[in-house]
Every structure is written in structure tokens, then in C-alpha cells.
């Protein structure tokens, strides 16, 4: 087994483990271990994890607080505190694992044992790169059309329009990709 495959396998095992563990202390220990494994890069890694998960965790916490306030002192939402803490720790741990391990893995080498998986990887990568380029264009277009930093309403409207466009584009691309695979004989032996 090559190094990349071993790393990928280790990552997948860790993700499954992090999903099965329900003890907040164990999740916190896992998070500390992952951060510690980064050595001198622990600080930037922690900051990246917080930036990536912060909005999601804040939205979930705000929703929980809102429900607790609506339910009043006798409501059951007050008991959801530990569950919320577990959820936050699990999300932080999964994000830290992804940022710590995946950049070091060459997916092409890790999946080299399967031709089919490599096809899937290349298709996903080419779509991802094309979409990333287009997403950059969308942001630049907004910048070019706005003389100052956009407000939240415009940002949300632009985000929604961008998401809708990408959804339509993904659907169209999926259809074209299937036609191209068919035309090139990818499904020659299906019955």
C-alpha cells in the first residue's frame, strides 16, 4: 500500500470514528491531537478550521438559542446544550481532520488501484477546476460592477443567483458528460 492510500484510509477511518463517538471529552481530545500533530502550524490550522465552520456553528447556536427563548424556562431546548457542544466539537474535529490530512494526499496515487475510481476523480477534478474558475469570474464581475463593498442584501442576492446558476450548469454538464461518455464507448458492454 502506498503512502497516499494509507493516509486516505487513515483519514476515512478517523472520520467514521469521529462520527460514532458521542463523548464530548473524547471529541475534544481528538481535536487537540489533530491540532497538535500539525506542530508549529497548529495555530494557522485552528484559525482555518474556525473560519470554515464558524458561520455554520453560529447559525446552529443562534437557532438553538432562539428556540430556547421561544419555549421559555420549561422548554426542552434548555437540555440541548450538551448536544450542541458535541455537535460543535464533531464539526470542528472533522474539519480539522480534512484540512490536516487531505492536502497531503495525492488522490490520483491513492486511487490508482481502480481505473473506475480514477475516471470519477478526473471527472470531478475537471468539473471542480472549471467551476472554481467560473466562481472567481462571478466574484470579479460583482466587484467590477460595484464601486464599493456590497451590502448584505446584494451579497445574499448575488450568492443566491450564483448558486442557482451553478446548479443549472451542473445539471447541464452532467447531461453532456453522460452523452460524451456514451459517444466514446464508455458503456459499450452494458445490457
Amino acid at each position, binding site marked *: 500500500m502506498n503512502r497516499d492510500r494509507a493516509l486516505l484510509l487513515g483519514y476515512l477511518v478517523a472520520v467514521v470514528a469521529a462520527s460514532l463517538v458521542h463523548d464530548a471529552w473524547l471529541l475534544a481530545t481528538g481535536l487537540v491531537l489533530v491540532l497538535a500533530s500539525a506542530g508549529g502550524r497548529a495555530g494557522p490550522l485552528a484559525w482555518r478550521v474556525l473560519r470554515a465552520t464558524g458561520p455554520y456553528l453560529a447559525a446552529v447556536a443562534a437557532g438553538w438559542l432562539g428556540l430556547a427563548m421561544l419555549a421559555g424556562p420549561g422548554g426542552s431546548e434548555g437540555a440541548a446544550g450538551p448536544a450542541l457542544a458535541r455537535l460543535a466539537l464533531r464539526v470542528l474535529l472533522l474539519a480539522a481532520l480534512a484540512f490536516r490530512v487531505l492536502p497531503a494526499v495525492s488522490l490520483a496515487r491513492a486511487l490508482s488501484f481502480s481505473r473506475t475510481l480514477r475516471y470519477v476523480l*478526473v471527472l470531478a477534478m475537471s468539473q471542480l477546476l472549471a467551476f472554481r474558475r467560473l466562481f472567481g469570474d462571478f466574484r470579479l464581475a460583482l466587484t467590477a460592477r460595484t464601486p464599493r463593498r456590497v451590502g448584505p442584501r446584494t451579497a445574499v442576492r448575488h450568492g443566491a443567483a450564483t448558486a442557482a446558476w451553478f446548479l443549472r450548469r451542473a445539471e447541464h454538464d452532467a447531461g453532456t458528460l453522460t452523452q460524451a461518455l456514451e459517444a466514446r*464507448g464508455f458503456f459499450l458492454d452494458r445490457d
Partner: protein
Amino acid sequence: MIATERLTHDFDGCPSLAAIDLRLEAGQKVVLLGSNGCGKSTLLKLLAGVLQPVSGRVLYEGRCVHEGLRERAFRRRFRREVGLLFQQADAMLFNATVLEEIAFGPRQHGLADADERARAWAARVGLSNVLDRAPWTLSAGQRQLVGLASLLVLDPRLLLLDEPTAALDPRSSGWLVDFLQDLPQTLVVATHNLSLASELGRRCLVLGEDHTLIHDGDALAVGRDREVLLRANLVHRHRHRHRHEDGDADAGDPGKGPHEHSHFHTHDWE
């Protein structure tokens, strides 16, 4: 070789092709002209059997393609003999390296010399120096050529090319026009670039904006047929300025010096 009978298609009720009848003989070089959205890509996809018609049928060597594709033997033969270059060539590329990409077809068809064939075709289209690179890291023009080599490596009998010059610079477009004319295959090349039409094929099919076939004949003659070009939305008129150096408009010399008027144009446009 291949023919259509009342071939009709629509996308969610919006017509994209209306009752097309045509017949292509082996060895013909045919250019398919039409403005954006008239159904050129749809027609090529129907001929390649990757889209189902709403009504009508495509016949390959007398056999209905969409029925035949349900049988493995016909499918293998048809997929080897008919190649479709997509307008967006990226859709065709899914292998890790250019060499693997070009060799994919021969491997699918169980040809023993897949790598040798792939190297030879890569050399013919000028891709020898990028064989180990991932296709998605290449320029749009190079990716187009990878797609083309991936088809030619199977030595198909019929090549369907959708806007093959769209991603190419002028020098590469010129090279491709010559290259295609030297190929022995039957060719159908879709384009909306009127100036290339007579270079790409001697026979010209023109699709109108109503998605019908409005012309089937000599490619050179089409360029002079104002009525057909207008119906197909292949010419436009706009105001523009001319300068005649041998006169002086300020002196009231009509038709001399800078002046403005409008007339029909057949500009290249992308």
C-alpha cells in the same frame, strides 16, 4: 452511409429540430451551417445516437441507430465507426493523462496496440510533448485536439465535429481546416463561421432559425445566396465608416473621403 427520416427533436416542448431529411454518402465532406440555437449540436448528437429523437429516425447503413444501439454488437461497431467531437471538448476528457485519454477508445475496443496508436495520433496533431500531462491542465485549443485525436485513433468512418475551430487560434484553425480536408473519413462539421464554410466541406447543409433544413447544396453557392443567409441569420448589417483617400468629403465630394453607410456583412463572429 447515414441518413435521417423526418428527424424531430425538442427540449421540454421547445423545438430544436424539425423534420430533417438528409442522406450522407461515404467520403463526403459536409459543412453544417446555422446560427446559435438553430439545432446544429442537436442534429450531430442525434446522428451519433446520444440523443433520442421525439419522432423520425436515423439510419446507419440502413439500420435504425436508436434501435440498433440496444444490441451489443451494433453498439460496438457504431461506437467505433462514428465519432462525435463535442463543442465543449472538456466533456469528453476523463482520463488522468493525455496518453491514457487518446488510448481509451482503442482499449475499450480491445485493440492490442492502443498505446502505439495513441502516440502516433498525438504526434499527428502536435500533442507529443504533453502526453504525460492531465488533459484539464492544457489550453482550450489543446484540449480540443486531445478530443479530436481520441476520435481519430479509432479510425472511424464518420466524424461529426461540433464547432471544432471555436477554441483554436487563427493559425491552428488554418491547420485544422487543411488537416480535416486530407482525412479520408466522411465528415460533418458544424459551424456558424460563414467564412470557413466553403473550406470545411463542398456540400453545405443550412439550418434555419425555425430548426428546419433550409438548404442542402454546394457550399460555395451558399455564400452568395443572400436569401438563404438572411433566413438562417448568418449575415447582419450595421453602420460603418469608409475612407477613400483620393477625395475630400469636406469639399462636398460625394462618395469621397470619410463617409458612413450600412450594408450586409458576413463577419466572422464567435
